């Protein structure tokens, strides 16, 4: 009896292959049931996310990873080239891989937390379907413990690794919680949408969108549940705002010191954070000289995101140590031999 992990992910397979192997929620349930009928499989869990599809199985003497791979390809009707497509881990290697996946160490965005819930859900489905027994039950519980330890004892999930996330982090440094804060997005492009969404996810309630083409402003406003403002009147709203995101394609400065100076008294000199993610820049750097204005451009945000990624990578060693410790503690012949 041995533990096997067979899978493909964003590192081994392009999206057009990954989507062939991706499974819906109902699909996972069916796959788990089918997996138990595959040759030599005694226990099984199937994990399917947008970036990976993995099969964790306990196989008997008459089964092996090649049988598992054949079975998976047969189920998906995959006839393409398999070279380098799948990765296979066995025994301790498979257990360590699961721990890395559950901790976000194997994710496209290092340290992301969503995967932990996805692994839990995959396990729950398999458990409910009667596909897990002694080995996988213990192994997954151990992996969840590792995920929790990694989350609480390391800094692998700290810091924003995207420009939109860095904008949120800066806004929180100025305002603390963003609950109830007012945001204006100048420009209706993809970056505006991402940043506005990120701010909303942290509690920003009032989001206004303005754009030279009003139709585009309306489209984005509808999409993010915000309010479109005509471009000719955005300055009036400045009085009530906490955060301004500028991302237009204008070849000149859109926001100038005079715009902010005009409303300082009315704002009672409240802090105002301005994020300029446009190139060429939309906000005159002199706006940042105003005492209560915190102005950041795309370079600062990119630098923050890069720094966060670097710091997360530094945490990997500590995470590996935690995994080693936890797997050592596991008394599983299928894992530790």
């Amino acid at each position, binding site marked *: 009896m041995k533990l096997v992990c067979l899978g493909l992910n964003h590192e081994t397979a392009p999206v057009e292959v990954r989507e062939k192997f991706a499974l819906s929620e109902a699909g996972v349930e069916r796959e788990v049931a089918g997996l138990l009928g595959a040759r030599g499989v005694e226990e099984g869990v199937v994990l399917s996310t947008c970036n990976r599809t993995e099969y964790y199985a306990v196989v008997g003497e008459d089964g092996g990873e090649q049988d598992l791979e054949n079975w998976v390809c047969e189920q998906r009707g995959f006839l393409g080239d398999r070279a380098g497509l799948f990765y296979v881990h066995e025994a301790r290697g498979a257990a360590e891989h699961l721990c890395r996946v559950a901790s976000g160490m194997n994710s496209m965005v290092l340290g992301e937390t969503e995967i932990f819930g996805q692994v839990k859900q995959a396990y729950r489905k398999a458990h409910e379907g009667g596909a897990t027994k002694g080995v996988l039950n213990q192994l997954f519980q151990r992996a969840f413990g590792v995920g929790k330890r990694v989350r609480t004892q390391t800094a692998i999930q700290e810091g924003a690794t995207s420009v939109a996330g860095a904008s949120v982090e800066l806004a929180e440094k100025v305002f603390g919680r963003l609950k109830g804060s007012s945001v204006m997005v100048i420009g209706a492009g993809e970056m505006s949408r991402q940043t506005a969404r990120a701010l909303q996810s942290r509690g920003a309630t009032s989001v206004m969108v303005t754009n030279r083409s009003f139709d585009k402003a309306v489209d984005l406003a509808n999409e993010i549940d915000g309010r479109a403002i005509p471009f000719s009147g955005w300055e009036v709203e400045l009085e009530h705002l906490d955060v301004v995101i500028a991302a237009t394609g204008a070849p000149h400065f859109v926001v100038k010191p005079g715009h902010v100076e005009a409303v300082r008294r009315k*704002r009672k000199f*409240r802090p105002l954070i301005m994020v300029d993610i446009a190139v060429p820049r939309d906000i005159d750097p002199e706006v940042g000289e105003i*005492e209560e204005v*915190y102005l950041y451009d795309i370079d600062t945000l990119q630098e923050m995101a890069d720094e966060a990624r670097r710091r997360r990578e530094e945490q990997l060693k500590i995470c590996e140590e935690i995994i080693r410790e936890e797997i050592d503690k596991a008394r599983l012949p299928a894992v530790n031999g």
Partner: protein
Amino acid sequence: MGIGWVILATVLAVAGGVIGVLGVREERTSRRAFFLMFGVFGAQLMALGWRGGLRGSCPLGDLGEVCLFLAWSLTLFYLVTGTTYRVSLLGVFTAPVVVLLQGVALIPGSFATEVMKKEVVDPWRETHAALSVLSYGALALAAVAGVMFLILNARLKSRKLGSGLVAGMPSVSRLVRAMFRITMLGWLVLTAGIVAALMMEVGSFNAHLLVATVTWILYAVLLGVYLWRGLPGKHLAWGVIVLFLGSLLVFGKL
């Protein structure tokens, strides 16, 4: 134990400060610093009890007692208000001030050795002294929050965001709110202290009361301007720092 309580309070404050700084370096907000400040507070109370027992009145009769009382009130307000935001980091900034004040108190001669126990105590005089020093504890803490704000503001404005110090600090808005609220609290206690001074049995409008009144007016102007007109955080921070240090300096000269 007597002076031993002051030494213990100082050692605990040093430990609180060191642990706090280490926590900042590791980008962690440790609660240990906060609990150590609780220990500081307890030791200060015992020390004040010792001096109060000797005097038979509020222990504010010499430099050592004033410093100790001020350190105690600073710790008290830190414990009361600190939990509303990142406690350990405020402790990092508060602990050195407490250590400094108690360090002065521990200089030989700061505590008078020959203390006459008061036979007759004027309750208004005792109330005035206690409230005045207590208010300075709050105003000192507001100044500490002001220093924190200036550091955070400078780093955010200059985009030096990568340090543990910035990561561990409360937000700009919270620090501004803290400065305002603690200053308001200190000002209200100072008001009560001045009212108590006017009620004293043998009282006269002396230089001491004049300085206290001017200080009171200046703080009232600062708070009024912030409340009705608004002030950039940096101006409020400089206001609470300059007023605290200025008035402390003038009181020291009297």
